[in-house]
């Protein structure tokens, strides 16, 4: 094998794939067969982290960065003058297997620029997955990109070999998509997604009746939206995410702060900073919807369609609903304990089980892992709580913001520094 050439290809095609945020390897249930290679860990494993702090779980590459489309936001767009390369099916499987054997990765995340047409591209992606499963006996994680417009037959085959499938919506609104990617249309993206969703539902039904049913995209589907490339507001983004969680049963929606890579008058200028803080707030909202029992409408109200950059969305909700506080730790239900700022899912669970043994006080709370600097204002202890008087103080918000410093404070200040 020509390693120098392979290295060059890997550099080009990893570089082109890096804007895809998803690297999750969780939800795979594939068990190793006797004497074969690979076993999916349900919780997923991050084998390393890049210097930007992102998890590296999968070998994330494009099959090729040749593309017939000219989407404004994409580095691989056809009008962009960059080095192009393409892997052969053998090269991808060889890299995957050899990286996996050394415990570098959990599996493969394969995407591709669209060459010729949707079906030709999809067929090639499927061929890689098929070779890994059938010829290499590989039971690690495989994430394939669904190509917009791919036929049902190919999607069916893809779901048999892949653990997860995803299509990136990229632009949250249809009007934005029309502006930046005029050759793409939303319906082409929705069809394969719908097909997989139905397939998964059907699998679950059949599984109830038959003992052995071939796996069908066991780790489900996900999608990704670029944040800050067009002028949509946070409420729109959250609503779109909510819609897809509900109607397409997505496992994850990813948010990717737009990294300005191309000069184009339809896009923010090259000097714009990556909206990392906004992206973080969107993820926090996403978590509130998925793990904290918040509804999309509760996170933002229509008059204030952008997330507060100064405080996190849960604290922001609490500040808008002060009448629901203080909460009594001894008697409140789990759902309400979850809504106390500074208390996360794990701490909430610990509180609910520890309070059966004894009456909890502030000291316990700290030891159980709550962020007491925020939580202390919102909780009513049986023994009383001197901090409660601030709840009605009109400078309460200022007090809260002053009492904690954001981890983004220096690193990603919204203000441009001069030097």
């Amino acid at each position, binding site marked *: 094998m020509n*390693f120098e050439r*392979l*290295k060059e290809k*890997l*550099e080009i095609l*990893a*570089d082109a*794939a*890096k*804007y895809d945020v998803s690297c999750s390897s969780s939800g795979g249930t594939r*068990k*190793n067969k*006797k*004497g*074969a*290679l*690979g*076993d999916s*860990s349900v919780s997923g*494993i*991050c*084998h*390393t*982290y*890049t*210097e*930007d*702090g*992102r*998890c*590296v779980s999968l*070998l*994330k590459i494009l099959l090729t960065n040749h593309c017939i489309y000219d989407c404004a936001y994409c580095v691989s767009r056809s009008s962009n003058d960059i080095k192009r390369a393409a892997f052969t099916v053998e090269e991808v499987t060889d*890299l995957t297997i*050899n*990286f996996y*054997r*050394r*415990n*570098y990765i959990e599996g493969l995340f394969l995407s591709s620029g669209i060459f010729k047409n949707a079906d030709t591209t999809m067929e090639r992606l499927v061929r890689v997955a098929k070779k890994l499963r059938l010829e290499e*006996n590989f039971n690690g994680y495989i994430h394939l990109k669904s190509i917009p417009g791919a036929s049902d037959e190919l999607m069916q085959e893809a779901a048999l070999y892949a653990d997860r499938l995803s299509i990136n919506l990229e632009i949250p609104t249809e009007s934005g998509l029309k502006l930046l990617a005029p050759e793409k249309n939303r319906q082409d993206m929705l069809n394969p997604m719908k097909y997989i969703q139905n397939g998964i539902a059907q699998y679950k039904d059949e599984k109830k009746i038959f003992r052995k049913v071939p796996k069908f995209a066991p780790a489900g589907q996900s999608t990704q939206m670029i944040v800050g490339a067009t002028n949509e507001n946070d409420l729109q983004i959250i609503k779109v995410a909510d819609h897809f969680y509900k109607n397409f049963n997505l496992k994850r929606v990813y948010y990717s*702060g737009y*990294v300005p890579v191309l000069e184009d008058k339809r896009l923010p200028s090259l000097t714009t900073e*990556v909206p*990392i803080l906004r992206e973080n707030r969107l993820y926090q909202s996403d978590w509130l919807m998925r793990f904290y029992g918040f509804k999309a409408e509760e996170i933002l109200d229509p008059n204030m369609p952008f997330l507060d950059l100064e405080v996190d969305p849960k604290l922001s909700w609490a500040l808008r609903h002060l009448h629901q506080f203080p909460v009594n730790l001894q008697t409140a239900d789990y759902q309400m304990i979850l809504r106390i700022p500074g208390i996360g899912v794990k701490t909430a669970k*610990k509180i609910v*089980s*520890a309070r*059966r*043994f*004894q009456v*909890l006080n502030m000291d*316990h709370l700290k*030891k*159980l892992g709550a962020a007491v600097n925020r939580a202390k204002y919102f909780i009513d202890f049986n023994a009383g709580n001197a901090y409660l008087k601030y709840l009605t103080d009109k400078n309460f918000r200022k007090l809260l913001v002053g009492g904690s410093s954001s981890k983004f404070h220096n*690193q990603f200040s919204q203000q441009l520094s001069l030097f």
Partner: protein
Amino acid sequence: MYTLKLNIRSIQLKTLKLQNPITHKLNMTTLLYDGSFDGLFTAVFEVFEYRYKEVEIVNKERFHQENIFAEIHEVITRNDKAERVLNKLEQHIGQSGIHELLKVYLSEHPESEHLILSAVKQSIKHPDENILQNYADSDILKISKICKSVSRERHRMTAFVRFEKMQDGVFFAKIDPDFDVLPLIRKHFKDRYQDQKWMIYDLRRNYGILYDLESCDFFYPEEKLDLHQYQQKFHDDENNYQKLWQRYFTKTNIVERKNLKLHVQHVPKRYWKYLTEKR
């Protein structure tokens, strides 16, 4: 069933001399055990058998006599005694509870024996409750914290082990974990790599796991493995794949989003020397 026969060739802990207030009381009995998991639970059994009140359990290898008034009782490991304790305990706190106590044991924490004894005592006192959930008790909270640390280290080892293919085709990995987590990761790697020979070797504790396509067992070399001229024994392809991986690692990074603080938080520096991509 619970016979985890592990020779703890223990590290010399500097924090051994824990100033535990009870240590300095009179009428104190010190139970010395051989360092094994079964030995520890034999000792726990004997605490109840002989109705010791003021008692501490100490690993023989870490024992320094501090209290000249203490009576010393040497425990002879008996699997039947250990199993009686563990079986009883399982009824109260379940298998997951036992697993937590195992993690405390593997943590090599200077208080681990004390904490395990405390948990067993509490469990006997409240047989109907899973006392490991009483997080307001300081011993139980310590147990839960230790378990968290050990689990995190275990998880990190499943992620950070880097195999290197040797000339004889064996995939070899060196580790140096903070806690003795090898017994906790054996199954993970055994399930995953069934068609290649592999070996994971704990440099600090001088033992390892070897899978030879048939069985997957612990091995305890007499002397430290000779890692002299280690890289010369690499398989021909090894350096190439390492280079490919390093290039991939660099290229998949988004420079505009550089955040070294987060990077180091996720990949603490003490692991770097074993990570191919960080060398």
